[in-house]
């Protein structure tokens, strides 16, 4: 079998060995996704932008302008904005991840089996799955970055990011985005298209609400059962990580714990997702 490489040229086919094959195929897959995305740039921006836009508008603009009797009003409004900024970035990352992988994958796996041609690439099938995670991560990063200008312009009192450690920011942003893509891959490859809406309401929405998005983890001190319960939720580390990087003045988990947990969940969901993908395309 080791003579296969020499046979390739012997049969007249161009020499197609080497690690470049992998990179080129990966780039091809990425370009394909990019092409599809640019064709739907408007819907994409609306999809990732709408939720943080409305959240900021209602909670940091409308509420603070309301008269007395509102718990969010007064001094609380602005600091809530500061808490909300990293949280909304985490939400944007999550939802882009799901929308970028889970939804298209579940149709591509469906009756049309559009994924077939990509699965036949001359690279291990896992690479096709990993490309999906990476492409989704790119969208998540764009989604998260879009929240920053919104937080400056929309609230009654602008919320500025206070990034001190850019390396930490980049690390948390990229890891969270990959994590969201891995979650999207797991969902998209293991759930059938009919149930994707259900999965949204029973998994995605709950883990978002219980993901320390709208409150810092430290704020759960009074409810120890909840504070420890949510540690199983990967979203917690996305929002806490972004809190540590974007608004370090707000109390947050220790950075080492955040990075450790992000790595852990990325490993778990990544391998789950890739395995689910393989199960779907190899029988």
């Amino acid at each position: 079998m080791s003579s296969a490489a020499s046979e390739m040229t012997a049969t007249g086919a161009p020499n197609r060995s080497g690690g470049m094959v992998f990179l080129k195929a990966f780039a091809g897959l990425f370009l394909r996704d990019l092409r599809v995305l640019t064709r739907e740039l408007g819907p994409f921006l609306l999809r990732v932008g709408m939720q943080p836009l409305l959240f900021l508008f209602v909670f940091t603009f409308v509420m603070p302008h309301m008269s007395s009797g509102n718990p969010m009003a007064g001094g609380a409004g602005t600091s809530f904005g500061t808490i909300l900024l990293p949280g909304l970035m985490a939400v944007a990352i999550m939802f882009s991840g799901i929308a970028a992988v889970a939804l298209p994958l579940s149709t591509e796996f469906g009756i049309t089996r559009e994924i077939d041609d990509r699965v036949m690439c001359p690279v291990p099938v896992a690479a096709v799955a990993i490309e999906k995670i990476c492409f989704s991560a790119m969208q998540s990063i764009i989604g998260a970055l879009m929240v920053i200008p919104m937080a400056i312009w929309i609230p009654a009192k602008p919320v500025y990011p206070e990034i001190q450690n850019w390396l930490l920011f980049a690390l948390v942003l990229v890891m969270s985005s990959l994590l969201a893509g891995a979650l999207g891959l797991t969902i998209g490859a293991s759930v059938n298209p009919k149930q994707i809406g259900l999965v949204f309401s029973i998994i995605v929405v709950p883990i978002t609400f219980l993901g320390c998005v709208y409150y810092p983890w430290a704020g759960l001190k009074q409810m120890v059962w909840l504070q420890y319960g949510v540690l199983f939720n990967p979203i917690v580390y996305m929002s806490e990580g972004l809190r540590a990087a974007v608004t370090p003045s707000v109390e947050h988990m220790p950075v080492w714990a955040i990075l450790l947990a992000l790595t852990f969940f990325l490993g778990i969901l990544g391998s789950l997702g890739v395995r689910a993908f393989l199960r779907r395309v190899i029988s």
Partner: protein
Amino acid sequence: MRGISPDAAEIPLPIPMNSYIVEIKALKKVYEGKQRVVALDGIDLEVRQGEIFGLLGPNGAGKTTTIGICTTRTLPTSGTVTINGIDVVAHPARARQFIGVVPQFNTLDRSLTIYENLYFHCRYFGMPHSEAKSRSNALLAQFLLSERGKAYPAQLSGGMAQRVQIARAIAHRPLVLFLDEPSAGLDPQSRIAMWEAVEGLRKEGITVVLTTHYMEEADALSDRVGIVDRGRMLALGTPQVLKDTHGARTVIDLKLRNIDGADSIAEKMKVLAGVDGAERIPEGVRVFAGNVDGLLPELIQVCSPLGLRDISIAEPSLETVFIHLTGRDLRE
């Protein structure tokens, strides 16, 4: 009549081993599950470089499963497949460089135009932009699709979509192209266009393995045909050899009103001149005849006491070969 009968063996050719582009050895596939299905029950096959090979068999014979394993999409339970000497289970990614596939169903990328379907396929296989572009345009021209480059797959007719799928499958210049039921669902005109496209591949030196349950298609297109049924290869050879050894006989089905006496009628028919054999079928009698001249009136006369309801005649073809081998119709 199970297994490859010795007289159906291929004509031995003095070709060294490595000129087999596809080599299948003792291939088995069992789908475990609530219901255990033995899809392939020991298939052996060698496909030579440059030939067009047809796998002919009824629904559920195991054709798609065979192609699935050859194209790295299905894992065999046991046995081996090599493509250009590369084991598809051990090195699937490497093997895929040499494989082109047109699956049984339209799997064109719905989010891309026809041109882009070809272009990105080329990119997946490592071609740089300019080469992918010129290759895609050349393929559009070759398959008479130039005007449809900007259309989306949903806007194409079944025949056009099938041509795009073939174009896409050979875009990276594979050594062997697998076509699963290429003419399923095509109108006769598109089917002929598809046949021409496949014939054209021969000139490019691409080996083709196709599956079909249309015997005319297997006959018209293939250099050699393998007849599969229930996961086994029943016969293998050129269409002519198969017809000569198994089915150079006309099959005449006589449906009777009163089938109680059919057995004795079959016995009577066996001794008629020109009749090679006769057997009971549920609705009457089936006669295998070498020479039909003058036979029909005699058959009708023999049947007349029981009342002849219907008579159907199948000329020698791969269809009669199949009936001979399995006792069933391809369509059953």
